């Protein structure tokens, strides 16, 4: 794009009072760029001024030196133009009030040794804004060559059927794959369901049958039973999926990445890319590479993973006191459900009517009030339901529930209350000590109950509340033909659920276009699973529509930019493929990355990772930030006897940048020697920016971004973590240049840390002051 630049300086909101605007205007003028000032730039007159320049003079690249880009976003937006929002208000004048950073008096101005830190800062920011404008262009969306709006649903239980029905009702074709011979999943094995609306005193028939009928009657839904996913290749909007029978060996079964130890030869030397590919092919013998598309494969736009759960096993020493294995009449809740489904409840050992049943909610040893593994509130509710079976089957039936915590959250409390009214259902908190055979039946002993210190109950049957293990605990299920591997990464931190770490965005996974729903994500009741499925169907639809429009999905929803690679200079180091938090890249046998733009979330981690600096976005690239860094004026002893420090701050735009704005709003001040550049994510920080800063004499660099680790708050999952690894490595490089490692640091800043951020910045500046100026200054 041919650019016609203009700088617009707003003098409102205290900018004009605080800064020497005439001097500020000299900055663009020196570069031959026109500059205009306005006392109220965001007013309609101010905007008209800009619009007139667009119309009359063809201005299309504007540096708006005014307030933060977080405000007046809609006002300073001009079709076909590139805009930089130079933040003079929140981060210059508000965060550096003249009461603390006095302007130079006329007298002081006469001595050239004096300088005005705040004015210097504003001038730098205008230089930086202008420099950035030269390096950015309006984005053009990525267009898929082929595109489909069909949704693949993995799992034919209530969740999968719910997702399929909901997507179909919105007009999207769906295929359900179910590994069993029929639809229905576990819900089809149930006798009854818990009531979810008034009245709460009776169980309701399962909804699963009517769902199966609805699915079968829906011409927009294709059902494939006894089918599993061999692999999903490609990218959202254009996935190529190979389906197969369970257990079948298929040439398009998904290949697995090479284990770390196989990447080295017998002497411990790392194999090169082509050698590794050869070993990888041997390791995955009989399976096509991830980049080979199945010519027979079916096309899908996005995926709902509704693979469900299996019952947790209750076995091992921890549970011997519960009698499981000793007596066939000690069963799990799933086994009990199967018995109940068959008819009246009878003992497995002898078929005798089970009129007295004890339900055990928690293992109950050593004063531990934990439930069995993988229990949610579902097991409490399922137990209430199963207690009701005993009562429904036998007028004189008795159900005993021994719990640590009765977990019937929300409106489910109504069902609990209703069951409490039943004179044949006895419930108590208690620790189960022992289940043993006694006479013809069983005896359950418990301590610390509400009915007394020690109780003993005679029972025909004992039911243990086993939890629900997500299918993803046993295998990846989705079988993505991705270089990073077939499953979700880091599922260990989620106890193997296909879960997200985000409270705000529950359907996000680390794989774009795959949305988990139902009990594969957390233990849920039937009703909650069906509800969960609706949301996953929406996300699947949204992903398809976003891919079709060539824009990013959450969190950079609507972003039209995507990473562009300059392949001629690629050295096949594979770092981009390995570091992408979303597995968006697959490299070929030589190690050259193949981008899959619709898998990409536009965080820029690949750009930060690339040592050759060949990856960039239209409006955010190595040069757009690099040129900002280079345009910062670094005063040296040639300029002043005691030149001020210059410190670069690369700041995550999601949380740390708003925190800085809020510090400004509260007039919380921090060092005026710091120059702030927002970045999409710390993961996008390329070390070249820091090297450039230090080699031009800047004294230090600080990265401010989100928390990492198991409880990461990084919106791009791994960005801040990867940045911290890179910063450790840069430390080594610095020491080889005889620069102290302490000159580069990364600090965690959450959005509500605005009261702490000045202290974080200032203490870093003090550390740099203690180290003294950068010895390269002035060279």
């Amino acid at each position, binding site marked *: 794009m041919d650019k016609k630049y203009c700088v617009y300086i707003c003098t409102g909101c205290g900018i004009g009072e605080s800064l020497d605007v005439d001097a500020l205007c000299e900055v663009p003028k020196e570069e031959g760029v026109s500059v205009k000032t306005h006392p109220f730039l965001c007013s309609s007159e101010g905007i008209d001024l800009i619009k007139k320049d667009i119309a009359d003079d063809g201005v299309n690249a504007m540096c708006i030196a005014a307030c933060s880009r977080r405000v007046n976003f809609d006002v300073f937006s001009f079709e076909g133009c590139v805009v930089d929002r130079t933040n003079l208000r929140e981060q210059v004048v508000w965060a550096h009030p003249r009461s603390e950073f006095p302007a130079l008096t006329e007298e002081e101005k006469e001595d050239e040794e004096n300088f005005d830190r705040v004015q210097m800062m504003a001038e730098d920011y205008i230089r930086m804004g202008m420099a950035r404008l030269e390096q950015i262009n309006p984005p053009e969306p990525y267009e898929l060559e082929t595109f489909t709006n069909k949704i693949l649903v993995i799992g034919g239980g209530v969740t999968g059927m719910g997702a399929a029905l909901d997507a179909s009702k919105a007009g999207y074709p769906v295929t359900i794959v179910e590994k069993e011979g029929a639809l229905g999943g576990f819900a089809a094995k149930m006798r009854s369901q818990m009531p979810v609306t008034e009245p709460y005193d009776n169980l309701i028939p399962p909804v699963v049958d009517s769902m199966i009928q609805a699915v079968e009657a829906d011409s927009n839904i294709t059902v494939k039973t006894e089918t599993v996913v061999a692999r999903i290749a490609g990218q959202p909007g254009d996935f190529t999926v190979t389906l197969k029978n369970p257990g079948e060996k298929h040439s398009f079964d998904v290949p697995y990445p090479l284990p770390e130890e196989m990447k080295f030869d017998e002497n411990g030397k790392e194999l090169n890319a082509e050698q590794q590919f050869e070993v990888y092919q041997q390791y995955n013998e009989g399976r096509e590479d991830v980049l080979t598309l199945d010519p027979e494969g079916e096309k899908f736009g996005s995926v709902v993973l509704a693979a469900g759960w299996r019952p947790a096993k209750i076995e091992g020493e921890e549970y011997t006191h519960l009698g499981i294995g000793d007596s066939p009449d000690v069963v799990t809740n799933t086994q009990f459900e199967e018995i109940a489904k068959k008819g009246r409840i009878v003992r497995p050992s002898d078929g005798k009517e089970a009129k007295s049943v004890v339900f055990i909610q928690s293992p109950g040893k050593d004063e531990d009030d934990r439930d069995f593994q993988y229990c949610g509130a579902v097991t409490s509710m399922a137990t209430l339901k199963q207690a009701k079976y005993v009562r429904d089957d036998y007028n004189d039936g008795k159900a005993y529930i021994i719990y640590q915590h009765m977990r019937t959250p929300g409106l489910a409390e109504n069902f609990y209350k209703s069951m409490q009214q039943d004179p044949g259902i006895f419930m108590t908190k208690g620790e189960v000590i022992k289940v043993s055979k006694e006479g013809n039946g069983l005896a359950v002993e418990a301590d610390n109950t509400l009915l007394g210190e020690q109780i003993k109950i005679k029972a025909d049957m004992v039911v243990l509340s086993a939890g629900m293990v997500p299918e993803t605990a046993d295998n990846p299920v989705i079988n993505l033909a991705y270089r990073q591997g077939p499953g979700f990464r880091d599922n260990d931190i989620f106890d193997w659920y296909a879960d997200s770490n985000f409270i705000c965005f529950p359907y996000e996974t680390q794989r774009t276009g795959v949305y988990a729903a139902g009990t594969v994500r957390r233990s849920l009741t039937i009703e909650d699973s069906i509800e969960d499925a609706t949301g996953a169907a*929406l996300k699947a639809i949204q992903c398809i529509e976003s891919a079709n429009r060539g824009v990013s999905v959450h969190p950079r929803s609507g972003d039209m930019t995507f990473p562009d690679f300059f392949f001629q200079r690629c050295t096949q180091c594979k770092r981009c493929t390995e570091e992408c938090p979303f597995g968006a890249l697959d490299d070929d046998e030589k190690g050259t990355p193949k981008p899959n733009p619709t898998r990409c979330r536009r965080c820029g981690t690949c750009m930060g990772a690339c040592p050759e600096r060949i990856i960039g976005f239209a409006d955010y690239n190595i040069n757009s930030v690099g040129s900002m860094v280079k345009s910062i004026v670094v005063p040296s002893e040639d300029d002043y006897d005691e030149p001020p420090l210059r410190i670069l701050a690369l700041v995550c735009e999601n949380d740390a940048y708003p925190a800085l704005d809020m510090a400004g709003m509260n007039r919380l001040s921090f060092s005026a020697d710091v120059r702030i550049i927002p970045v999409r994510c710390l993961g996008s920080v390329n070390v070249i920016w820091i090297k450039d800063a230090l080699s031009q004499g800047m004294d230090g660099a600080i990265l401010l971004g989100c928390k990492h680790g198991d409880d990461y708050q990084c919106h791009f999952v791994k960005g801040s973590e990867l940045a911290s690894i890179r910063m450790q490595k840069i430390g080594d490089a610095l020491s080889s240049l005889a620069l102290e490692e302490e000159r580069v640091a990364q600090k965690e800043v*959450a959005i509500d840390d605005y009261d702490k951020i000045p202290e974080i910045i200032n203490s870093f500046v003090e550390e740099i002051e203690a180290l003294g100026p950068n010895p390269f200054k002035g060279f």
Partner: protein
Amino acid sequence: MATDNSTSASGSIMVVGGGISGLTTALEAAEVGYEVFLIEKAPYLGGRVAQLNQYFPKLCPPTCGLEINYRRLKDNRKIKTYTLANVEKVAGEAGNYTVTVQLNPRFINQNCTACGECVDVCPVDRSNDFNFGMDKNKAVYKSSEMAFPMRYTIDPAVCKGTECGKCVEACNYNAIELDMKPKTVELNVGSIVWATGWEPYDAAKIDNLGYGVCKNVVTNMMLERLASPNGPTRGKILRPSDEKEPETVAFVQCAGSRDENHLPYCSYICCMASLKHATYLRERYPEAKIYIYYIDLRTPGYKYEKFYSKIKEDENVFLIKGKVAEVRQASGDNVTVVAENAVTGEKMEQTVDMAVLATGMQPTAANTKLPADLKLNEDGFIVNDFEKGGVFAAGCANKPLDVVTSNQNATGMALKAIQTLKR
């Protein structure tokens, strides 16, 4: 003006309520490509979530999620937001509703740059409802640094109007219009999602728990504000009567919930909230002792269970199964909590510096009649009828939920709303 942006009636969705559920439904639908009108009665979006200090179990700031949602909103021209807006009337049927919306005056126009000059000259104090009246702000105010839209508002209940007019003089941008009048707009939409949320149950209605009578009895939502860096105590938790740092704090679970005289249901979030509050206190005051009185600890699921296990290990947190019978004033400004241990039967009295009532959530619709043909259950939650379609409830308007489940539910309701448009 308002209808300029509307497309054909069959293509638009209205979301009533701009809290986390409403924001989610609006954004999720708009990002599929539909036009959305987001209606919020308060001057700012964010609802209850904007008042929280941290989310459980991650202990991360809710403003982080709000920031990203606001950014999505800014970037999406398909959403038209109305604050200070009330739905007055809904006419028509699924697929074609005409909704009358009253737009109440903000008294501040779009010229506002949020510079804050007006606040410095405003002579009128008002009880700050955002902080549950624990401090005062001015008649011209914004709720917080995160307020969206980022523009001031004037509270007409306390503003002296043109007879004062100091703010008008102080404003350099002609942003203040003290004679601004309410307006009415009619919007045509195909479906409506009610995300009207919840209100903290009025603790004063629970006679035996001392709220409003004892000096240092606060509610769980008040504690959120006390812990927030932008709250009345700038994040220091101090007891209200004398600003003392509390050394002992009791939490009364099910304050009004699971109680036939108040809210018969379980409010879903209070157990996790109190455990989270224990972390707020323990982080600030390493010697503080925390007593939590509960009926059952409802911390289901692996994430919540892990959170609970971690807090259980803290020797200064005492978890007592027993319902609190009474909270009464003790000597000094202390309070005494009386409870019966459910397991041992022992009657216990504990005198503490401060007591926190874990009050439950009551749906907004329980106290405010919504102007639409909605089926409510007896507690005021809106019952969804997906067969009928057209109107839906999302989040806590539908049932008591935590934030993560509200978001889940609200995402799904975006699809239900879209389905109505496709019929």
